[in-house]
């Protein structure tokens, strides 16, 4: 009797364990993914799913920032920079067993280049008008030809997850380490280990080590922090400095500072002619001296210390030092110098009248800074900048707006004076910022959609960006973009404030998680991540 009870208990335990995935990584998505189609990805949650499930031809190693072969064993770019030929790995299958061939690459590129498809991934390849032609030379060889040279062409394929042309599961058939097993809207996305994943570790065991990934949908950062501190989730991919410091005090082994991220925070002034702001204010904002004076009056060190708890560094320009190749180390450090700021203002015709600054016509210098409401760090930064500029006689009104209202003001009706926002850099290559620097572009924030460049320096930036986009070698590109960074530092259309650190949370139960500044900071090597209790050869 006793023996049968023990046997029944053991059976129950076995049954329960079979249903329970013990090596399942859990972390949060901040919102529902908008799509599972890799070609249409434009939001963070969908991008996460794509990274974890998508197989790419080449992969940018987020740690070394070097390109590595993935599904493509090798590749070659033609001399004119328009054609790339991939030699694919053989014997690779999608998660449902469908063989991977060159036809899938062609299918994916055709899908991405469809004029009705609008996504950041596809747009990165649209260097010039004209058709993109993909040619299948054999099952394992494919060429893709573009209408014009594309700078940094191979690296762009890091974002292109290959979709199956033949699988009945369409975009759900995955080449990456995981596939989407279940999706409950508003609740979670469950990923399971891809049984046909092509990668193996050095001992020959199949990867990934993890059985699955559960991505619960939760936008509340307090809940995320609580669940992480209770070990209910294993990763926090990006954390605010406040939360980082709180966790560091209670469990220092759970958090990591990966150093400066690729992102920056900056202010810019509205320079759009005809914007619905006072003409005299437009004149201020167009004055280089005014912009540089404002820059010199801001205590960036205080911003880093107070708002980010020391987990940030003053920024020098549009590129963070975390971007090893493209960062221009020759750029001067942004300096806080009130005397210099007053001198610049004096040269531009401003003078102190009592405690307040006035311009040549006697208008008191007062303007508003808009930023997005609900972002505590930006609200604090704006308040500190308000105090810093008061010290030089400038009155600043901090206006926090909900995001759509903010976007409408800065992108459509230009009804704003100054804006404080951040730039999120997903890619390392400056070509991804082309639309920021070209004066004709919509994203040329301070004065978009110019028919002809409004200033000589903007014309120069246009010229240099086109050089770097069409140059055959990286050295030429680097020289051109270094010069762009210098011009930006001189003219200050953006006043770069700081580069915040990449702060992450990693459960001590995980192994081989290497936190890096580039996205995704914690799970960029997901196939190698394992739990410390896991046996080698999981899945075999």
């Amino acid at each position, binding site marked *: 009797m006793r023996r049968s009870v023990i046997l029944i208990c053991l059976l129950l335990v076995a049954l329960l364990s079979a249903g329970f995935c013990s090596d399942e990584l859990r972390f949060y998505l901040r919102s529902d993914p908008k799509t599972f189609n890799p070609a249409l990805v434009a939001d963070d949650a969908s991008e996460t799913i794509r990274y974890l499930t998508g197989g790419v031809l080449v992969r940018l190693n987020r740690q070394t920032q070097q390109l590595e072969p993935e599904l493509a064993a090798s590749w070659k770019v033609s001399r004119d920079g328009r054609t790339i030929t991939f030699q694919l790995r053989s014997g690779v299958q999608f998660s449902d067993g469908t063989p991977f061939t060159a036809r899938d690459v062609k299918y994916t590129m055709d899908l991405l280049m469809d004029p009705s498809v609008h996504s950041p991934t596809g747009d990165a390849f649209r260097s010039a008008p004209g058709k993109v032609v993909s040619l299948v030379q054999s099952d394992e060889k494919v060429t893709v030809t573009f209408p014009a040279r594309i700078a940094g062409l191979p690296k762009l394929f890091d974002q292109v997850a290959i979709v199956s042309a033949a699988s009945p599961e369409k975009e759900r058939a995955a080449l990456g380490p995981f596939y989407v097993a279940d999706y409950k809207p508003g609740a979670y996305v469950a990923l399971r280990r891809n049984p046909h994943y092509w990668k193996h570790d050095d001992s020959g065991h199949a990867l990934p080590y993890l059985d699955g990934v559960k991505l619960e949908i939760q936008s509340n950062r*307090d809940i995320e922090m609580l669940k992480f501190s209770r070990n209910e989730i294993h990763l926090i991919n990006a954390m605010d400095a*406040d939360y980082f410091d709180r966790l560091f005090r209670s469990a220092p082994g759970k958090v990591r500072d990966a150093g400066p991220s690729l992102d920056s925070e900056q202010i810019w002034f509205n320079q759009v002619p005809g914007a619905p702001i006072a003409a005299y204010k437009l004149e201020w904002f167009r004055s280089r001296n005014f912009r540089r004076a404002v820059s010199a009056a801001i205590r960036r060190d205080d911003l880093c*210390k107070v708002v980010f708890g020391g987990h940030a560094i003053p920024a020098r320009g549009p590129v963070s030092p975390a971007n090893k190749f493209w960062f221009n180390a020759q750029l001067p450090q942004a300096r806080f110098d009130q005397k210099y700021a007053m001198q610049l203002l004096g040269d531009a015709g401003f003078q102190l009248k009592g405690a307040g600054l006035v311009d040549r016509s006697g208008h008191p210098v007062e303007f508003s800074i808009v930023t997005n409401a609900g972002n505590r760090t930006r609200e604090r930064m704006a*308040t500190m900048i308000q105090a810093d500029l008061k010290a030089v006689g400038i009155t600043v*009104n901090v206006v*926090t707006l*909900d995001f759509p209202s903010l976007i409408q003001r800065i992108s459509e009706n230009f009804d*704003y004076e100054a804006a404080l926002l951040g730039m999120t850099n997903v890619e390392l290559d400056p070509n991804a910022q082309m639309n920021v620097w070209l004066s004709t572009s919509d994203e040329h924030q301070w004065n978009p959609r110019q028919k002809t460049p409004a200033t000589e320096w903007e014309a120069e930036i246009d010229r240099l960006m086109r050089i770097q986009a069409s140059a055959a070698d990286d050295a030429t590109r680097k020289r051109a973009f270094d010069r762009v960074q210098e011009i930006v530092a001189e003219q200050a259309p953006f006043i770069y404030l700081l580069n915040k650190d990449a702060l992450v949370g990693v459960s001590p139960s995980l192994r081989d998680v290497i936190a890096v500044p580039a996205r995704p900071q914690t799970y960029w090597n997901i196939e190698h991540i394992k739990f410390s209790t896991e046996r080698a050869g999981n899945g075999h």
Partner: protein
Amino acid sequence: MKALRTAALVVVTVIAIASFGGSLSPAFDAARQDRDHVSAGPSADHWLGTDALGRDRLARLLHATRLSLVLAPAAAALSVLLALFFGAVPGFLGGTSERAAKAVVDVMLSVPWLFLLLMVRAALPLNCSPAVSATITFLMLGLLGWGVPARVLMARARKLRQSEFVLLARGSGVSPGHLLCVHVMPNLRPVLTAQLWIAVPAFILAEANLSLLGLGVQEPLPSLGSLLRELETVLSIRADLCNFCALLVLIVVVSSLQIVFCKQEVP
């Protein structure tokens, strides 16, 4: 009860004097940032410690209390007046006006006024002074916060319309206006006082949430609502009780006002 009422009155008076007096004193500068002592505990220089930007918490509390104590009750009074106008008067008059008022109140209760508030923000100049922005915010809260009491007042007024003393007064030739003001209004006081107690803290808290739309009290001016918003995160949970001073002040003020104005119904 009388002793309690007196004590409550004294407490409210002391808080009011302290907040008005303190906020006018240059010693209590709510905007000055001591960046070397952020999120610090109580000290000789900062009796209640400092906030995340190194600003003196006591100074900010005094300024915030003054602003909220003036504007929130004013907004609450406005909502009460509107509730009377849209609730009690149609309820007493009955007929088409009552039916129309019911429909208006139902729509009032269920339409997302968030968008109207966004329009108000869009209409305001960006360089609006913090005081003006605060005033307009509380004005909007008063203008939009009368739906619930209006409904209850309507039901009560309808009942009073059919009560014996009103019928008697009407039969005696008393005009509707006189009836409403002299006989009906006093009997509506319980609902009106309830609305006041609910509206004051509700509007103080709502003002802070309106900062997500660009309204509310703009920096560097503090409000009780903005100080309370700091409690809405796990980071506020720490041994430093000074973090909860704003909440304590709000509770004490609201409770004291409740005790002071709590009276028996007059038939």
